[in-house]
């Protein structure tokens, strides 16, 4: 394993410590819980608190999106494993400005359970908590079972929109509704070319044969919808666009935001090669590219691969996406 690690059990603590150290002007650790990262601006009196959280190994997600006009507090889990209910609860406490807290997270069994329990704890503490569960990953369930779909890179748009809405002084219900609208407007797909390794395990926890690719792969290597021969970048881009837009079917003229993220070990130039084709395909379908993000925004350790997220914009979503933010992730 050619990696920079000490004791694999310490990776998450070391990552969070280094992260907070590097971005001290934007983030701090919760004094009571080293698995909770808090914006130096939080809590804001009278503002709806915005919380997320999830397993580690997806950096800059989740912690990287803590900051001004973004997420107020993040619960940090082990690699690929949901944070504890306690950490979600401490994040809720840390972001509470008295106007209630919205938890914007991804649809995974562990996260669902721990957020639910944290919500109960918060209720006891008199904090009203509403939740939005991201399920933008098209390949993880059929269209008629969207509630089963995983949350992936679309969460970044959900956080940016939700964070900006909360910053605008909106009410708890309004922030929840707008964040829900944001994730409902997102569709994502991932393609994996090489697996990732949990350092504590020591070998890849799934296989992708050389010459093959996993279409629809999950952020933890969950198998996709099909294992295919590795194709030229343009054909992969075409397939990603097809999967996302066939599920989305947007009327021509729709303004969209696009996010192309590497999964951790994909060189930046290849992301631009993919994006160049993706953008052309999206415009060829009569959609209008309002905003694009290309880089490592939501990764899976050192997996080789990329994800595409397309968000359909309305005036409100586009305006909120344009709001200036200050966080390590962008």
């Amino acid at each position, binding site marked *: 394993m050619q990696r920079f690690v000490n004791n694999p059990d310490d990776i998450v603590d070391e990552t969070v410590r280094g992260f907070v150290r590097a971005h001290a002007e934007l983030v701090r650790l919760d004094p009571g819980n080293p698995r909770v990262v808090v914006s130096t601006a939080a809590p804001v009196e009278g503002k709806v608190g915005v919380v997320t959280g999830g397993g580690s190994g997806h950096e800059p997600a989740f912690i990287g999106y803590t900051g001004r006009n973004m997420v107020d507090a993040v619960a940090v889990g*082990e690699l690929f494993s949901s944070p*504890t209910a306690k*950490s979600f609860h401490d994040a809720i406490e840390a972001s509470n400005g008295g106007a209630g807290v919205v938890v914007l997270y991804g649809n995974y*069994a*562990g996260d669902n359970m*721990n957020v639910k329990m944290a919500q109960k704890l918060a209720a006891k503490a008199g904090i009203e908590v509403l939740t939005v569960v991201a399920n933008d990953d098209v390949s993880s369930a059929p269209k008629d079972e969207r509630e089963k779909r995983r949350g992936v890179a679309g969460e970044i748009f959900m956080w940016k929109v939700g964070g900006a809405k909360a910053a605008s002084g909106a009410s708890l219900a309004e922030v929840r509704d707008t964040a829900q609208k944001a994730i409902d407007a997102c569709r994502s797909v991932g393609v994996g070319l090489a697996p990732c390794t949990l350092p504590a395990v020591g070998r890849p926890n*799934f296989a992708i044969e050389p010459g093959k690719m996993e279409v629809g792969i999950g952020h933890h*290597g969950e*198998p996709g919808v099909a294992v295919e021969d590795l194709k030229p970048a343009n054909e992969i881009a075409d397939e990603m666009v097809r999967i996302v837009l066939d599920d989305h079917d947007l009327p021509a003229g729709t303004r969209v935001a696009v996010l192309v993220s590497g999964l951790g070990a994909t060189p930046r130039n290849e992301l631009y090669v993919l994006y160049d084709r993706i953008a052309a395909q999206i415009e060829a379908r009569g959609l209008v590219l309002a905003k694009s993000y290309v880089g490592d925004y939501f990764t899976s350790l050192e997996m080789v691969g990329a994800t595409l997220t397309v968000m359909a914009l309305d005036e409100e979503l586009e305006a909120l996406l344009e709001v200036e933010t200050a966080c390590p992730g962008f």
Partner: protein
Amino acid sequence: MATLRNAGSGAIVSEIAAVIVENRAYLSEIDGRIGDGDHGVNMAKGFSRAAERLAGRETSLAEALDALGQVLMSEIGGSMGPLYGMMFIETAEAIEDAETIDVAKFASMLRAGLAGVESVGAAKVGDKTMLDALVPAVETAEAAAAEGKDFPEALAATKQAAIDGRERTRDLVAKIGRASRLGERSKGVLDAGATSCSLIVGALADGIAARLDR
């Protein structure tokens, strides 16, 4: 009629932890086939932490099970933190005040543990989860109690029921958790949680059997 003394039997929990730690790589490998490959890592971390806390302390089975539950609950996260956390906390509560544990008590403590799991997760038998090992174990223990089977026999039957349940998950299509997205493709592989659960039930049964006084 053979019984287990609650006091002084906390070491059973350390034995359960040892079994989980031994199977760390195996459990992660199973989880890796249709999940994300961290089940063994999560479990081993939580169980070994609890074992450390218990090390050298003279505890009752109830105290030890509760300590394990608390660690999983508040320090582990994942799906397993809350699921096994609630399971052990409820199991412990069921025998809190018991001097000794007999077949009937054993059955009721397992039933309480199952209730704990169900209070968090929404899974049902057949969904390809830990419940597919736990539920048959509970029902077998209850049947043994009803039939007045003796304790060693009941323990052996319960352990076997969990193992059989785990084996049946091989043919099941996952209905919940990460693997559920695979539909038919989740068939043919054991469920990680059912596997760890059968190890836990087995180690618990063995630990009790080794300590029965008659």
